[in-house]
């Protein structure tokens, strides 16, 4: 079963901490360990900051963050709506390094980035 949680926020860096706390809260609720939570929080922070930057650059007013919560993994999908088809979230080198370090998987799909993090003992 997948639980689905959505946040929608203005493109202001001021609310990234709200998203981080929500992320940590969800992970804590599922009893993920502290290291997971810390890494997950960092990944989500990066994701949201990247999307907010891109959204601003493309004059989008709001971004959305979806948490798809399973017992052994959490997927986060963060993005914004744009009328332009060529619009893509740009991932800088540092963000790439951070995401490589903390996320099990991530990928950019146009104006959206997805991040997947699995429970440690579920890693293959």
């Amino acid at each position, binding site marked *: 079963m997948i639980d689905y949680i959505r946040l929608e926020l203005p493109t202001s*860096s*001021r609310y*990234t*901490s709200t998203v*981080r*706390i929500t992320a*940590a*809260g969800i992970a*804590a*609720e599922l009893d993920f*360990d*502290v*290291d997971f*939570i810390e890494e997950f*929080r*960092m990944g989500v922070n990066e994701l949201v*900051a*990247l999307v907010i*930057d891109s959204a601003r650059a493309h004059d989008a007013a709001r971004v959305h963050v979806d948490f798809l919560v399973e017992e052994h993994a959490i997927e986060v999908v963060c993005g914004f709506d744009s009328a332009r088809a060529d619009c893509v979230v740009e991932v*800088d080198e*540092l*963000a790439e*390094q*951070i995401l490589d*370090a*903390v996320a099990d998987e991530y990928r950019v799909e146009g104006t959206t980035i997805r991040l997947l993090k699995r429970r440690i003992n579920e890693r293959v």
Partner: protein
Amino acid sequence: MSGSELSPGEIATLFATYRSTRQRRDRNKLVEVHVSFARFIANRFMNRGVPTEDLHQIALLGLVKAVERFDPNLGAAFTTFAGRTIEGEVKRYFRDFTWSARVPRSAQELHLGVRRATDELITKLERSPTVQDIAMHLEIDRDDVVRGLAASAAFNSASLDSAGPCSSRSATDRTRALSSTDDRLAGTVDRVLVESLLTGLRERDRTVIELRYFDELSQSEIAERVGVSQMHVSRLLRRSLESLREQLSQ
């Protein structure tokens, strides 16, 4: 990537800007100019069975955290702060992946830390501390403080701020609640805190405490169940409370 690109003054200005605007461009620049510093710290841990590349990656994450958390107004130099943060991350890595004993750091532990810090700060500041106060006191992230606070709700404990039925004084002073009579304790003490502290007690002592405060049996009822005298129960309770109080003040 070297620190020589920016003067100390420019770095200070950039930190001040980043603190107020939180632009990732500024953050990235601050990370970039300190990468070699982070590697320098990490290199102290070389030749201990962890590949240098991994060490550098851990150090980089530590550096990012340090940049995001650093408050120039506190007076410490960034390198001092970052050095400690990075070293902490690297040591944690060694602990997690190369040591056999892993220290549990649960949300509950965080919750207890936050609660303890709150009490200490109430006394020190003579007001209810802000999240920022607690974060500085414990040297942890503001988010973690919020998480610690949220954990209390998650564990379904009665709030310390709601005075128990028997309490005539402020119930926020946990130490006082613990040192007062056991009737008062039943109503005021944070159940979660007690539950966690109890794990440090011997099994019989724990049973006695649980029967008294969770099942709310009288001392004589407990005495009958455990098979000792009522006075014995009373002594056991007193001794356990003493031990809990000691743990609490640590």
